[in-house]
């Protein structure tokens, strides 16, 4: 018995066991605390609290201001009701432009993102190609669509076209990334099986890749249409067409009841879009 112990210690010592809890630790005996935060997490929570306090000090929030704000909100809400849907022509034009921007930007975004996503997929393309494609996709995603819209308004003038171009850029940034990730997660077994039959690259794409990713792509595209619909109500604020411009103008002449009417229309549009999204997912879900 005694002779075997040094040998055991030697073996155990060489495999570097994690330190074991011993009964000598005061807090452990019969009450292990499984939900306690670790030291690092505690520090993290304190750091977050500190950052939030610093942030609070920058926005000069005071009770007086809050009360004043509530008063303002009361008046504001009072002036919003009942909602007004006139001038009808302006409303319809804004909605129509918003739809145009969302549809065309999504379509152009999908057409551009498909090759982009393919080029950025690391399991199919050489590293140099994916690097360039990834850089372009990241660049498209970096700036908020509204900022991109400012540049395009300067380039092609006020109107719908600037909005379409701005949201196309945003769509490439978003869809390109998701497409590339979906293609990278494809099962390579099927790809190899199709390749083994001597298939061309186009056939590999058509019979091994697309069937695996189609459903997810449809989901991404549906989501992007939805988000373009929401963003297309924003780009108008910098003059890129759509509902935003009409809204901003109504705000500036204190037409709050017309603003509410427009907001209700936008909400209806988005709820409709969400219903369509569910339908599309159901049809393609099998």
């Amino acid at each position, binding site marked *: 018995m005694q002779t075997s112990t040094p040998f055991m210690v030697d073996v155990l010592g060489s495999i570097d066991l994690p330190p074991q809890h011993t009964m000598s630790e005061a807090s452990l005996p019969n009450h292990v605390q499984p*939900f306690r935060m670790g030291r690092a997490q505690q520090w993290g929570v304190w750091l977050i609290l500190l950052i939030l306090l610093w942030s609070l000090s*920058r926005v000069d929030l005071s009770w007086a201001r809050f009360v004043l704000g509530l008063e303002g909100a009361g008046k504001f809400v009072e002036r919003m009701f009942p909602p007004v849907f006139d001038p009808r022509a302006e409303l319809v034009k804004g909605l129509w432009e918003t739809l145009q921007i969302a549809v065309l930007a999504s379509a152009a975004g999908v057409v551009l993102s498909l090759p982009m996503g393919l080029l950025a997929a690391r399991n199919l393309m050489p590293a140099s190609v994916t690097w360039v494609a990834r850089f372009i996709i990241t660049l498209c995603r970096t700036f908020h669509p*509204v900022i991109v819209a400012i540049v395009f308004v300067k*380039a092609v003038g006020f109107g719908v076209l600037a909005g379409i171009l701005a949201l196309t850029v945003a769509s490439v940034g978003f869809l390109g990334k998701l497409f590339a990730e979906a293609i990278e997660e494809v099962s390579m077994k099927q790809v190899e099986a199709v390749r083994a039959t001597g298939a061309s690259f186009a056939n590999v794409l058509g019979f091994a890749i697309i069937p695996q990713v189609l459903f997810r792509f449809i989901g991404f595209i549906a989501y992007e249409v939805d988000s373009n619909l929401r963003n297309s109500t924003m780009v108008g604020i910098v003059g890129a067409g759509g509902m935003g411009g009409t809204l901003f103008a109504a705000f500036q002449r204190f037409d709050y009841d017309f603003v509410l009417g427009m907001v209700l229309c*936008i909400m209806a549009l*988005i709820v409709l879009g969400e219903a369509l999204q569910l339908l599309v997912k159901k*049809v393609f879900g099998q």
Partner: protein
Amino acid sequence: MTQGPKPLQTWQHLTTPQRRGRWLIYSLCLLAIVQSMRSVEIIPDFLWDAPTQMKDLFERMWPVEWAFYLTPQNTGAQTVHQALLDSLAVAFLSTALGVLLALPFALLAARNITPWLWLNGAARFVLVATRSISTLLWALFFVAMFGPGALAGTCAIAFHSIGFIGKMLSEALEEADSGSLEALSAAGAPVSSRLLYGHWPQVKPAFVAIVLFRWDINVRESAILGLVGGGGLGMALNASIDVFEWDRVALVLLVILAMVMLAEWVSTRLRQRVI
């Protein structure tokens, strides 16, 4: 005795209704695109002019006016540096406020926590409604309430975030494994304990991921809110655009770029560490 050939059987990937459904959706998409193309108003002259305009824009942006970072536009105004700090503060605060506001709705919308269907539906409606109003629109509302400044921006982003955070969180809550929850209720645990010891440990990674993701988005949004008076870098951007000082615009854009890149790096690193 010869047996006639069996009727030819063709294998098809989809059933007839499935195929019809797909064709219906494809043709609807095509119709929407064609109809939009036909009616969209594009002025060709503006389009041909675009390259010249872009060249002009970049020529005016160069050289970037670096000194603008620390000198205010006019006396008493914010410097770009202060605007940057404001934007960061807005991003932090709005994420925190958004989480606080979204939490009750997420709990109400999760079917395995709130067993009343009408409450689920009502909470879901709030989540969709807050999300469908864009940040800039919320900002217009809050600027009308609190006056221009970072406070309005914070509230705007926070209210827009409710929908996103609430939806993702309620989905994560619903995906929680029911085993430990049933064990807790079998032991007679009250609702608070079920939430704290049943749901929370299971959704914690998802929660951290959602908050980080939203913070990343909010950093981007905080940079544009100033366009409508919501404080931060957008104010500096707007002030420079209004007077066509494109070299200053270039500086603000570069600052935004740096801020966004940094935020993305931080959130990616944190995500890797925490999850």
